[in-house]
């Protein structure tokens, strides 16, 4: 038994030494950078807080015994939100603090970001005398004007910040990967299409947009489906046109020039001002904020991918795949793209930091994020109305600063690990 175990250990050690691939190398390099590694762990911790915010700060108990039976109100809330369950009569529109429990277990912070504690409003300092039953109910980070617990707002603000950072960068990633990969992989000469196909695509693209806008009011997914169907029909017609002599001639599409020009245009847009104006004139919506940030911040990703693919595409194994006769798109997604992805992580890490900063900037100015959410930026801006409420200035600002710094540090670590040449 013992012998076998030792053997296994040796085996795994050998494996470790054999792991000479690109990703294991990057991982090892990244782990050498202690600051970046620590930041990564800290970000994972913050992500944990963001995901379980409802269990850390909530105005309902975890578990309670009420009139003899046990309930799990927080879980129940999720079930109700998902539409699979309903609240019992006793708990409908009830103030959970007033109920008489036989026994109850509350979350670490027994307040939500929307809970208004009228007894401790406005602006009660963390260590001032608070009207509370015991220290269990103390507002450790104080309260704001309406009596919202600042600590609870910070916990739930983590969720908003991470949501905005990750979703907006997800959107940017999709757009950036698409443009970066077609321009880098095909360049100006490798995308050869028949004239018919080019013409049909140019004609059918506005048509697809038209039908997209028509069906958009019904359902987003239906609209996308219809647009795809229209494009497929266009390409099928193009297949038929291939029998016409002039239209079947292949021409090369200068994808790279088109995409690079487009990137140049987007880059010279003053991002912050544009995001601000778009978000300011429409009613507050977190999805609008995420969408707009994603729509203007993809150029970095596209540039990284393009540069990397320009290098990768002339490597021997890509040529081998071409000789073997694989379709272009298959080679791009299966062989080229996975080996060009590394630098994108750098852009994404810095991008999340920037997105979180933009979100708090917008909240601070009072645009974009619904006001009742009490995000970090909104808490910070409340401190301007009450210059004596130092806790409203220190804690949320610190949260923004720390989160942004962590993502920047991860970005730096990734830069060092993936491509030291990129670091200027």
């Amino acid at each position, binding site marked *: 038994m013992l012998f076998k175990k030792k053997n296994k250990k040796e085996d795994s050690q050998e494996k470790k030494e054999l792991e000479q691939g690109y990703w294991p190398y990057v991982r090892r390099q990244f782990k050498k950078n202690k600051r970046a590694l620590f930041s990564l762990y800290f970000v994972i911790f913050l992500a944990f807080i963001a995901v379980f915010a409802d269990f850390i700060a909530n105005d309902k108990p975890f578990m309670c015994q009420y009139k003899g039976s046990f309930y799990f109100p927080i879980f129940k809330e999720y079930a109700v939100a998902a539409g699979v369950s309903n609240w019992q009569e006793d708990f409908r529109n009830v103030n959970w603090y007033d109920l008489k429990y036989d026994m109850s277990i509350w979350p670490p912070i027994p307040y939500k970001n929307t809970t208004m504690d009228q007894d401790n409003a406005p602006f009660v300092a963390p260590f001032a005398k608070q009207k509370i039953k015991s220290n269990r109910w103390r507002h450790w980070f104080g309260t704001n004007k309406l009596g919202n617990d600042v600590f609870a707002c910070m916990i739930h603000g983590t969720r908003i910040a991470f949501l905005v950072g990750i979703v907006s960068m997800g959107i940017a990633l999709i757009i950036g990967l698409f443009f970066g990969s077609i321009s880098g992989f095909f360049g100006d000469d490798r995308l050869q299409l028949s004239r018919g196909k080019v013409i049909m695509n140019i004609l059918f693209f506005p048509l697809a947009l038209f039908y997209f806008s028509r069906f958009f009011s019904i359902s987003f997914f239906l609209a996308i489906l219809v647009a795809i169907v229209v494009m497929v029909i266009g390409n099928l017609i193009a297949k038929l046109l291939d029998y016409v002599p002039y239209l079947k001639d292949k021409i090369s599409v200068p994808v790279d020039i088109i995409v690079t020009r487009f990137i140049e*245009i987007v880059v010279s847009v003053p991002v912050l001002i544009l995001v*601000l104006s778009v978000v300011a004139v429409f009613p507050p919506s977190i999805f609008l904020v995420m969408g707009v940030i994603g729509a203007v911040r993809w150029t970095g990703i596209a540039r990284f991918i393009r540069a990397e693919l320009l290098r990768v595409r002339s490597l021997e194994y890509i040529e081998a795949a071409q000789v073997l006769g694989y379709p272009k798109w298959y080679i791009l997604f299966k062989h080229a793209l996975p080996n060009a992805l590394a630098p994108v992580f750098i852009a994404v890490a810095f991008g999340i930091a920037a997105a979180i900063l933009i979100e708090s900037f917008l909240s601070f100015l009072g645009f974009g994020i619904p006001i009742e959410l009490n995000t970090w930026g909104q808490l910070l801006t409340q401190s301007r109305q009450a210059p004596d409420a130092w806790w409203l200035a220190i804690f949320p600002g610190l949260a923004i600063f720390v989160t942004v710094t962590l993502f920047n540090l991860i970005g730096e670590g990734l830069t060092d690990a993936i491509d030291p040449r990129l670091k200027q």
Partner: protein
Amino acid sequence: MFRYILKRILIFIPTLFIISFVIFMLGVYAPGDPVANMISSPGEESATDRMAGEKEYIKKWKELNMDLPVFYFTISSLADCDTLHKIYRKAHRETLSALTSEHGNWNQISNYYEELKKYEKKVLAFEADSASLKSWGRLRDYAANLYLKSKPKDVDNNIKRLEKYTDKINDSLNILTTSLAQLKASYDGVVSQSTSWKNYVPAINWYGLKNRYHIWITRFLQFDFGISYQDKMPIALKIKDNIFWTMLISIISIILTYIFAIPLGVFSAVKKGTVADNVTTTILFMLYSLPSFWIATLFLIFLCNPEYIQLFPTNGVGSEAIERATELHGPSFFRDLGIRIHHLILPLICWTYGSLAFLSRQMRGGMLGVLKQDYIRTARAKGLPENKVIWKHGFRNSLLPIITLFANIFPLMISGSVVIEVIFSIPGMGRMLVEGMTSQDFPVIFTIVMMVAILTMIGYLIADILYAFVDPRITYTNKK
């Protein structure tokens, strides 16, 4: 070189077009009605007040060119009406286009709309006796409500209600009953002759140059920025008042940034690995991630607050303080300068430190790259003094990326100015923009965004030209 600049300027055109298009469409499709915001709200009670309000509304609406099409063309469907923009009520337009996408027969729909207008006029003109006054009031409300309904079920319900209240009214001449019957018949026509398939056939409507976008952009290019919705002042005048402080602080800030960032970057690159370098790098990194609005808030709370420390005045640029001092003691240049500096020092710090950190980090990186080069080793081997090696051989070659960063810093400063101007209440462009946004003052928003975009692009252009001057190797002509 000349050809390159020309090429860059050619790229400006699509960029400017896209930005202006986006920002203009934003104003068109934003919720809210700018005309209604501009005129005083019409009296609700008397009919004459309403008519007068309506007239004023139409006048203002025409003044703002709102009766023209939005763009050169529209891509719409066969069902859509190409002169919908001529209807002046925004809510009516929305209802009509919803009706079109429901039924797809514009002729019948416009007929129905005309009937509805006639009907409403009749209802308003109807002189109800005291017994049926209440019902008449309901009738009026439901008739007005019908303008907002587009779903068949809602319209039917509404018409049924109208019938119900018409029955209750003492209508001896049958005026209301007949016109309601006409209205109903016209709506039945809309429903029965529905051609909703037309919604799925695309059509292009060409409007020519007489459209709102064209008029706005040509006026903008002739420096006619229009009038602010908010205070009815010409925007050019408002900008003239506001641009001074933004520009002044930005320029001082850029100068300070370069003065401090370059030696700092060179210093930490030369001393690489030492404690001094580690400390500077860490501090710079932290400064780089510090949100300027946080620092500004902290300054305001801890340094301008009688509760803690009051070192600096809370807001403004000190114009009032100067006036007061002049009244008391007469004019004095140095005292005024002192007051200005006292007011501007905190905003200036917040304005500068971010780009300072950014630039120093770039300078350090560039210098590190250069110091590794062979010619630096050669210079040292020749026995040149270290100072000369660093400044003459190293520094000059690492200056290159720093110059291009000018283009990045410039827009950064202008957008950064927004929040700092708001916090310190400096009467500048950023604060003007935010005020314009909160009151949906679109001419102000358009103008400032466009100006920032143009300045940004000029920044990029200047950076490119400087780049070529500093480095003769860069020609731009055979650049691929």
